[in-house]
C-alpha cells in the first residue's frame, strides 16, 4: 500500500471521536449560536425549550440571564440522559422550532389500549387525543400522564404530578435502540455462524472482526474464571452480554443521542439475569460456603452466614451501579464540556471545548469497551464461584502440607 496505515487509523479514530459533539450540539441559547457555528454545523439534539432566548449580546447579559442559561444547560443535560417517546436527531430553524427525526409508536394501557404515533405529542408541546382520553408528556420527568383537553397538570405541594399515570408500553427511543441492537447482533453473529459452514470453518466478512473477540471471551474470560468443565453453558450468556453492552455503549456515543446503558432499569435487568443464573446454576459447594463456611470455628460460621448471603445480592447490585454510573458520568462530563462553549461564549471557549470534548470522546470509546469487558469478566467470576468444586482439593492440600 502506498498510503501509510497510521494516519488513516488516526483519521478514522478522530472521526468517531467527533460524533458525540454532533449529538450534543444544542440551541440552548440563541446568543451562542455564533460560537456553536464555529465548531459544529448541526444544532440541538433535543427539544430543550428553545423558545426562550431573544438574542442578547453577551456583554449585556446580566446575572439573571446567565443563571437562566445555566439552568437551561442543566435541563438540557438532564433531558439528554432521559428516555423519550420520539427520535429527534437535531433541531433547526431560527429558534430551533423545527425538528429532524421520526416519531415512534405510543402504546398506553388506561381503560383499554391506546395506540397512536408520538407525533401527536408534538415534541412534548401538544396534547394527544385517543379514544376520548387526553395524554400529555410532563416536561420534568418525561412521563406520559392523562390530562384534560387543555393538558393541565396538577401538582401536590412537593411538586409531584398527581395526574393519572397510564401504564406505558410505548416503543420509546431506548427500547427502539435495544431492539435494533438485538437485530444487529442476530444478523452479525448468525452470519458469522453460517460462514463457518459455507466457508470451511473460516469466518468471512464482518465475522473476521468479531471472531477474535469471541475467542478472547472464551479463552481469556470464560475458561480461566469458570473452568474447562463448566464454561460451555455460560458462553452464550457471556457473549450476548458483552456485545449487547458494547454495542449499546457505542451507540450512546453516536449522534443518535441515546443513553441506554446509562439507564438504571436496563442495567438492573442485566444484573438480575446474572444473579438468577448464578443462583440457579450454583452447585452444592457454593451454598455450603455461604451457609456453613468450612474451616472456621462454629460461632464464626453463624456470623459469616448472613454476611455471605448479603454478599450474593451485593455482587449483582455493584454490577448494576458500576455500568450505570460509568455511562451516566461519561455522558454528563461530555455534555458539560460541550456546554463550556456556551459558558465561555468567546473565541477561546469553542476550540477549548472542542478539544476537551474530543479527547474525552476518545476516552469514552475506551470506556465503552472496558465496561462491557468488566461486566462480562465479573459475571464470569461469579459464575465461576457458583460452579467451583474445591472441597476435595482443599482436603488434599491440608493433608499434603
Amino acid at each position, binding site marked *: 500500500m502506498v498510503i501509510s496505515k497510521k494516519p488513516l487509523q488516526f483519521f478514522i479514530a478522530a472521526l468517531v471521536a467527533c460524533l458525540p459533539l454532533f449529538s450534543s450540539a444544542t440551541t440552548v441559547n440563541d446568543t451562542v449560536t455564533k460560537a456553536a457555528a464555529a465548531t459544529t454545523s448541526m444544532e440541538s439534539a433535543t427539544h430543550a425549550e428553545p423558545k426562550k432566548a431573544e438574542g442578547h449580546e453577551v456583554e449585556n447579559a446580566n446575572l439573571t440571564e446567565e443563571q437562566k442559561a445555566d439552568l437551561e444547560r442543566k435541563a438540557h443535560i438532564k433531558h439528554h440522559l432521559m428516555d423519550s417517546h420520539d427520535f429527534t436527531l437535531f433541531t433547526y430553524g431560527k429558534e430551533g422550532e423545527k425538528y429532524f427525526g421520526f416519531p415512534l409508536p405510543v402504546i398506553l394501557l388506561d381503560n383499554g389500549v391506546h395506540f397512536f404515533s408520538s407525533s401527536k405529542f408534538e415534541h412534548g408541546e401538544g396534547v394527544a387525543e385517543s379514544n376520548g382520553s387526553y395524554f400529555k408528556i410532563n416536561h420534568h420527568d418525561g412521563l406520559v400522564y392523562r390530562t384534560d383537553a387543555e393538558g393541565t397538570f396538577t401538582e401536590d405541594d412537593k411538586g409531584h404530578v398527581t395526574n393519572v399515570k397510564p401504564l406505558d408500553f410505548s416503543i420509546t427511543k431506548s427500547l427502539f435502540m435495544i431492539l435494533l441492537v438485538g437485530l444487529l447482533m442476530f444478523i452479525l453473529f448468525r452470519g458469522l455462524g453460517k460462514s463457518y459452514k459455507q466457508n470451511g470453518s473460516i469466518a468471512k466478512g464482518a465475522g473476521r472482526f468479531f471472531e477474535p473477540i469471541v475467542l478472547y471471551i472464551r479463552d*481469556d474470560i470464560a475458561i480461566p474464571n469458570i473452568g474447562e468443565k463448566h464454561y460451555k453453558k455460560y458462553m452464550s450468556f457471556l457473549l450476548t452480554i458483552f456485545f449487547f453492552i458494547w454495542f449499546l455503549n457505542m451507540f450512546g456515543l453516536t449522534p443518535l443521542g441515546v443513553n441506554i446503558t446509562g439507564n438504571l432499569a436496563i442495567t438492573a435487568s442485566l444484573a438480575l439475569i446474572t444473579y438468577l443464573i448464578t443462583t440457579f446454576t450454583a452447585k452444592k459447594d457454593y451454598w455450603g460456603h455461604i451457609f456453613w463456611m468450612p474451616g472456621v470455628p462454629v460461632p464464626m460460621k453463624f456470623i459469616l452466614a448472613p454476611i455471605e448471603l448479603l454478599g450474593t445480592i451485593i455482587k449483582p447490585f*455493584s454490577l448494576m*451501579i*458500576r455500568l450505570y*454510573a*460509568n455511562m451516566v*458520568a461519561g455522558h454528563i462530563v461530555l455534555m458539560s464540556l460541550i456546554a463550556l462553549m456556551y459558558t465561555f461564549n468567546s473565541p477561546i471557549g469553542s476550540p477549548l471545548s472542542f478539544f476537551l470534548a474530543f479527547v474525552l470522546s476518545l476516552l469514552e470509546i475506551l470506556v465503552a469497551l*472496558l465496561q462491557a*469487558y*468488566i461486566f462480562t*469478566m*465479573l459475571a464470569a*467470576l461469579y459464575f465461576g464461584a457458583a460452579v467451583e468444586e474445591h472441597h476435595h482439593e482443599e482436603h488434599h492440600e491440608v493433608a499434603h502440607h
Partner: protein
Amino acid sequence: MEIPKIVGAGLVVIGAGIGIGRIGGSAMDAIARQPEATGKIQTAMLIAAALIEGIGFAALFAVN
C-alpha cells in the same frame, strides 16, 4: 446536612482515587519486572480497579 454529605463523598472519592492509583502503579512495577505476564497483570488490575470504582460511585449515589 448537605455539606457533610458532599465532604464525605469527596473523601470517599479521594480514597478510591488513591486506591486505583496504587493498583495502577503496582501493575506498572509488575509489568516492568515481568513483561511476559502483562496480560494477566492487566486483567487482575482491571478487576481490582473496577471493584474500587464501584465504591466510589456508591458514594456519589449517596449524595444524589
